[in-house]
């Protein structure tokens, strides 16, 4: 009947239980019975290439479900029942025939079974043996099927153990005499007869028992078609076994020998086979050789094997088999077909050498080797990775090192090329970087340069360590512009190294040492130059000028020769000129060193102009020039400036005008322009070309050409000093106009003093 698959679960490792839903179905089934499941969809090809159905152990414990357990290693089930969708219906054949036993336990029961028809009874008999079935059972068992031998053994055992079970077997057809011989008269007529077997056997038996007077109502007949494969006749097999016996025995000690029929059913097993398989000979005989299958080889392996031998060839190969106790053994097998009298195949002989130890060794070796290979491969992979990584890292390191080295070399070279000493130290005064100049400046061996040493050298002048620590603590530079070190002057700068990235942490300091001795000497010699200029130069100049003047003033009458007089006059003029040059230089240097002091006071420029005109009148007269001051109609306001310095500027500009004018006049004028008073000096002199105008008011510049220079005898500093003075007063000095050959107008402005 068709039953739906309701549940499926793994009840033990490798064992699946499938539950078929029995709802609404009458499925008379008793514990331990064999159930045949015949499903078109479940059919599969066994190693013989035959379509098979299965009998499997089952253990029903409720009325709702038929539960069938099977090993997943049974590949067909695994593929089908194990995988078929839940709810799918499959054909399930219940116990053969109407296996419902009578309620009346006193009724004797006769089972008549043929061939593998025994199987449905067997489980019942097992229950009977365990006194679960309280019937008196007589089993008539006709067994022409060698495969059933194995059941016979068990049946005999059951019969021995159970008084209410009588086994009557007959290894041939069950005929009326045989039945009458084995069952007493009363039992024949009163018993309930259960007949299961192949159709021919079943119907034949039925006829016989009817003849014996058994009523039809007392028979339960189930026809069962077992295997359809051809089976070697018992006669042939026995002959074969007998013939081979002597030969086979010789092999007993060392070689596993078995003979099977064409379907693989074992009909001969030698001692070695029995010993190795751990089955008894009786267990082996009649069983299909596949009971030894280990599940190790694939279906294809067996297909190839069967193909080889079924086509008349000898198959040779290594097979892993499973012994009864579940242990495995390996054999090197030679399987060959056995041919009958008409040259037809009647069975197979397998001669097998036990190679378990070798296989184990091989397996182990293989496993070890595989493991080793895997391990080796893994190690190689790792090593390769590491090597690659290492190479990459090395390459990077080399590259970076080179870069760093180059960078460092550049840095060191730069630092070393510095004239000043360079030290980088950490807060503990450990020197991290230094250059050669340090040792050179301090005059100590390079290897002895430490902060402590340097500090020691400078002790008494400056406490370097303390300064460095303060520099770090206060994050500020310390500039020690002039530190006396022996006969040297050093400039020392201590600067903290602040890591902006790391929260402005100070990680050390930089110390710069500069030998400024030479600079100091230079500075000093410049000062000394001015000192010489002011004292040593002025002193002899004073003497020259003074004596020349004295000669001309007090000893004129004693000088008869006019040429000598002229010479003395030249000395005096040159002396004056030299004095002026020296004074200009001194004044300029005072300006540049910002040592010039001004005293700005309000004063009247027109008074000053009168004064200057008076002073320079003689000079202008000598050249036949008119020099005058044109005062404005209204007296201009006072200016705020240093009168002496402004007088100097006015004298300078007026003097220049006189010097650069051959004929004509020099006029000083005043003009009020906003809050400034403009002082103008206008001449009718040689004028200045526009190109040269731009060069006026520069240091050491003189307007005009070489001739003009000869005429003026200036130092070239006059206008420059005038410019500095006027600008210092807050005014502007300019050349307002100048036309070569016609004359120039210079002017300067001064701030008006507050009223």
């Amino acid at each position, binding site marked *: 009947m068709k039953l739906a698959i309701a549940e499926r679960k793994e009840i033990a490792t490798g064992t699946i239980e499938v539950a078929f839903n029995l709802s609404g179905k009458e499925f008379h089934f008793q514990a331990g019975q064999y159930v045949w499941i015949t499903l078109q969809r479940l059919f599969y090809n066994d190693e013989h290439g035959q379509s098979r159905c299965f009998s499997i152990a089952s253990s029903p414990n409720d009325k709702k479900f038929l539960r069938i357990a099977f090993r997943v290693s049974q590949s067909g089930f695994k593929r089908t029942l194990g995988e078929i969708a839940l709810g799918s219906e499959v054909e399930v054949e219940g116990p053969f025939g109407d296996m419902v036993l009578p309620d009346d336990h006193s009724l004797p029961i006769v089972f008549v079974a043929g061939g593998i028809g025994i199987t449905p009874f067997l489980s019942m008999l097992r229950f009977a043996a365990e006194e679960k079935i309280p019937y008196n059972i007589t089993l008539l068992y006709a067994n022409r099927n060698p495969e059933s031998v194995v059941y016979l053994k068990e049946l005999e055992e059951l019969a021995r153990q159970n008084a209410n079970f009588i086994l009557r077997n007959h290894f041939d057809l069950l005929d009326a005499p045989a039945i009458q011989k084995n069952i007493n008269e009363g039992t024949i007529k009163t018993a309930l007869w259960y007949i299961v077997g192949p159709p021919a056997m079943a119907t034949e038996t039925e006829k016989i028992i009817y003849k014996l007077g058994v009523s039809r109502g007392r028979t339960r007949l189930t026809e069962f078609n077992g295997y359809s494969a051809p089976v070697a006749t018992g006669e042939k097999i026995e002959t074969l076994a007998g013939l081979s016996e002597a030969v086979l025995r010789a092999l007993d000690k060392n070689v596993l020998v078995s003979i099977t029929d064409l379907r693989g059913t074992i009909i001969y097993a030698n001692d070695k086979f029995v010993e190795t398989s751990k089955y008894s000979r009786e267990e082996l005989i009649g069983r299909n050789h596949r009971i030894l299958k280990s599940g190790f080889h694939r279906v294809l392996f067996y297909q190839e094997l069967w193909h080889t031998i079924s086509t008349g060839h000898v198959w040779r190969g290594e097979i892993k088999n499973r012994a009864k106790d579940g242990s495995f053994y390996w054999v090197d097998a030679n399987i060959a077909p056995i041919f009958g009298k008409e040259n037809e195949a009647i069975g197979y002989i397998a001669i097998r050498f036990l190679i378990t130890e070798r296989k184990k060794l091989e397996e182990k070796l293989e496993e070890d080797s595989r493991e080793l290979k895997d391990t080796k491969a893994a190690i190689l992979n790792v090593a390769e990775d590491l090597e690659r990584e290492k190479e990459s890292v090395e390459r990077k390191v080399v590259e970076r090192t080179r870069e760093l080295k180059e960078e460092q070399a550049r840095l060191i070279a730069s630092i070393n090329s510095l004239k000043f000493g360079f030290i980088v130290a950490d807060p503990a005064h450990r020197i991290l970087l230094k250059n050669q100049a340090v040792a050179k400046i301090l005059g100590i061996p390079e290897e002895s340069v430490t902060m402590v040493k340097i500090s020691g050298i400078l002790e008494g002048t400056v406490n370097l360590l303390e300064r460095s620590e303060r520099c770090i603590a206060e994050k500020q530079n310390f500039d020690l512009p002039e530190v006396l070190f022996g006969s040297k002057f050093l400039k020392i700068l201590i600067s903290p190294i602040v890591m902006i990235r790391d929260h402005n942490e100070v990680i050390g300091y930089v110390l710069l040492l500069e030998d400024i001795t030479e600079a100091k000497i230079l500075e000093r010699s410049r000062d000394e130059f001015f000192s010489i200029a*002011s004292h040593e130069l002025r*002193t002899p100049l*004073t*003497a020259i000028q*003074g004596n020349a*003047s004295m000669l001309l*003033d007090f000893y004129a009458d004693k000088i008869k020769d006019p040429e000598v007089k002229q010479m003395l006059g030249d000395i005096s003029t040159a002396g004056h000129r030299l004095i002026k040059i020296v004074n200009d230089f001194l004044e300029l240097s005072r300006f540049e060193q910002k040592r010039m*002091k001004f005293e700005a006071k309000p004063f009247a420029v027109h008074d000053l102009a009168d004064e200057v005109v008076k002073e320079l009148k003689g000079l202008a007269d000598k050249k036949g020039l008119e020099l005058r001051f044109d005062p404005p109609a209204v007296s201009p306001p006072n200016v705020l400036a240093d009168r002496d310095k402004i007088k100097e500027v006015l004298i300078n500009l007026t003097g220049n005008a006189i010097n650069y004018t051959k004929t004509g006049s020099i006029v000083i004028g005043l003009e009020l322009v906003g809050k400034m008073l403009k002082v103008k000096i206008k001449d009718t002199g040689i004028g200045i070309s526009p190109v040269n105008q731009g060069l006026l008011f520069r240091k050491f510049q003189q307007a005009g050409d070489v001739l003009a220079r000869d005429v003026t005898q200036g130092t070239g500093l006059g206008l420059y000093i005038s410019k500095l003075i006027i600008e210092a007063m807050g005014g502007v000095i300019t050349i307002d106009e100048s036309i070569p050959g016609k004359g120039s107008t210079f002017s300067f402005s001064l701030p008006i003093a507050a009223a």
Partner: protein
Amino acid sequence: MRKVFIVEDNKDLCNMYERLFKLHGHEVTVASDGLDALDKLRQVKTKPAVILLDVILPKMSGLDVLRALKNDEELKNIPVVILTNSFNETNENLFLAQGASLYLVKIENDIKDVIEKVNKLLSLV
């Protein structure tokens, strides 16, 4: 005729100023360094009418000589004319504050200016 005391370490200038004052009828005594000057001034019975004092001098500077003079009862009333080539307003003020009567920069004062200014000072004293 007045007595003029000149303190000047430069031989040329010393000769020149000595000649200048002699030409103008004065009696001249000279000293070439600060200590020499003080010694001579203290020893001489007839004190000079005016002292011309250089600033940069060996052994004892012009300023120290001036201070010593002004601290000397016998000498402190003699007018001192600082005759120097070192021009510096600070110096000028310093010497005037210490009791110098005049501060003349040699190179800026021609011999005629020097004699003029000293004679003027002498006539006032």
